[in-house]
């Protein structure tokens, strides 16, 4: 008798738990359904159509044609190439500089708290601020960079010839954007590496020193290999960042000159918002979404493995 009562009470509690579980999830599921799940079906669907994105009557089914066009579209190929260059340079520099700064801050010398805060400030700033600042920095006539090259010191060093339109020249536009982007986000990598370095005890460094390993050898043989969890995070976030980079490019060059700084995200925005090619733009969206989801899956699997280890 008592057991049935108890089992009944237990079942009641289980039902309550299941119902409350879904109730707690209801708001996020409604929002995700409205903006993400519906959006996903919609984007995949119209990526098979030719459509201006305005009048639903004008949709014309064209199968895989958008994707075929994409593979031969110089704008898209250039955007992938740019994103790849952006990714490799950004990640390489950020790993080296981020780790270097984290190492320099570790001994907690004079002003280390000030420096840490200072390097992180650009992360907390709007890209609009960063873009406007660098726009003035690169400005061809009175910009800081060209003024430096034209100054007596610049003349003395023979750098005057370097003064030119940094964002207007196709050969330097992408590099200029990459530099601004690294300036903005280096503080984030620094924080990752500071966190990563806390897993290495001072004893490890001491032991390496007793063994006669110098600074660089310690760095290469001890510190670098044991930071692989952090490296992985930085690399995957760098990949996601390269795929979705939009605001800094849009604010500085809008993808130009020509397609010199075209990115998948800027091409997507141009196709949909400026050229009224919603169907074609959607095929770019689909490519970006697939890449981001795959990268997230790798990151999640990696974190899972780390937690189990």
């Amino acid at each position, binding site marked *: 008798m008592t057991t049935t009562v108890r089992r009944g009470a237990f079942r009641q509690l289980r039902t309550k*738990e*299941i119902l*409350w*579980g879904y109730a*707690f*999830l209801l*708001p*996020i*599921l409604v*929002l*995700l359904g*409205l*903006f*993400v799940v519906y*959006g*996903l079906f*919609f*984007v995949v669907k*119209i990526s098979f159509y030719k459509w201006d994105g305005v009048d639903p009557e004008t949709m014309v089914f064209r199968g895989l044609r958008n994707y075929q066009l994409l593979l031969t579209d110089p704008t898209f190929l250039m955007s992938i190439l740019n994103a790849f260059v952006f990714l490799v340079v950004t990640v390489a520099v950020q790993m080296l500089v981020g780790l270097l*700064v984290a190492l*320099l801050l*570790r*001994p907690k*010398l004079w002003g280390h708290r000030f*420096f840490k*805060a*200072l390097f*992180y*400030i650009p992360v*907390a*700033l*709007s*890209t*609009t*601020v960063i873009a*406007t*600042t660098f726009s*003035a920095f690169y400005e061809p006539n009175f910009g800081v960079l060209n003024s430096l090259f034209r100054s007596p010191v610049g003349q003395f060093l023979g750098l005057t010839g370097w003064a030119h339109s940094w964002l207007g020249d196709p050969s330097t536009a992408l590099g200029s954007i990459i530099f601004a982007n690294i*300036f903005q*986000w280096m503080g984030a990598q620094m*924080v990752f590496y500071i*966190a990563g370095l806390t897993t290495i005890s*001072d004893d490890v460094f*001491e032991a390496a*020193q007793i063994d006669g390993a110098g600074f660089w050898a310690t760095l290469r043989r001890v510190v670098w290999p044991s930071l692989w969890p952090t490296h992985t995070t930085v690399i995957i*976030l760098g990949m996601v960042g390269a*795929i*979705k980079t*939009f605001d800094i490019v849009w*604010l500085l060059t809008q993808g130009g000159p020509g397609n010199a700084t075209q990115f998948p*995200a800027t091409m997507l*925005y141009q196709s*949909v918002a400026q050229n009224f090619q919603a169907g074609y733009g959607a095929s770019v*969206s689909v490519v*970006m*979404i697939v890449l*981001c*989801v795959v990268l*997230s899956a790798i990151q*999640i699997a990696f974190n899972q493995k780390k937690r189990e280890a």
Partner: protein
Amino acid sequence: MFRSLSLGGKIFIQAVLIFLGILYLVPLLNVVYRSFLGAGASNYVYLFTSGFPILRMIFNSFLVSILQVLVILAVASPSAFAFSKMNFPGRDAIYLAILLTMSISMLCFITPLFQTLKALGWMNTYLAMVLPAATFWTPVAILILKNYFDSLGREMLEATQMEGGGFFTAWWKVYLPVSRPATVNVIVFAFIASWNDYLNPLLFSRTDDMKTLPMAVVALSNSIYGARPEVVAACLVIMALPSVGVYLLLQDFLGEGMTAGSVKG
């Protein structure tokens, strides 16, 4: 490498730090300096009195950011609690699906978002400025909060149930207050992300009176009021104060959120 740092090593490290520090300090201070060029503080006065709707845009920025933070917390905290402490069919699959959407840019859904917001009649309204962007930030908040709830254990839930309390009471009265450190992280990083967001107002605000500050800077540079770079610089300084201020004031309370907050970029 560290404890037995030689004097030479210390001087070297200090020199490199100061060099990098100058590299970072100069461009940042330069914006402040330029905002006072020419007319001094009058640049700021001009910005507020020229007829450019800057006050409205500051108000919009605060309203949109605060509402986004409230929506994110109201949606993320209960779901993170459910993912962490409750058992129901499909829980892990739903959590995985939500995490997978984390890195997708809102820009990818530009056409369906326009269609949905138009159908709802929300275009160029605060609802359009708040709900989609908050939705796209919520998965990060769920991740941060669930990790924190995971570290708390199930005992407090069982204790609440012994006293006759339900799941809602356990979340609202026990777990939400205890999760304050993680909640503060979410509030700070969601606020900064929303305050700084350029894409959101670019997509969903149509008129000047609905724009937030990142669009204000662009609108100002192209308008009759602010062609002068000093005035634009003044606007940048005003825009930077809240986000940098919040970060500097609360930096000691920000732990893992600093890394998780960077995920969303």
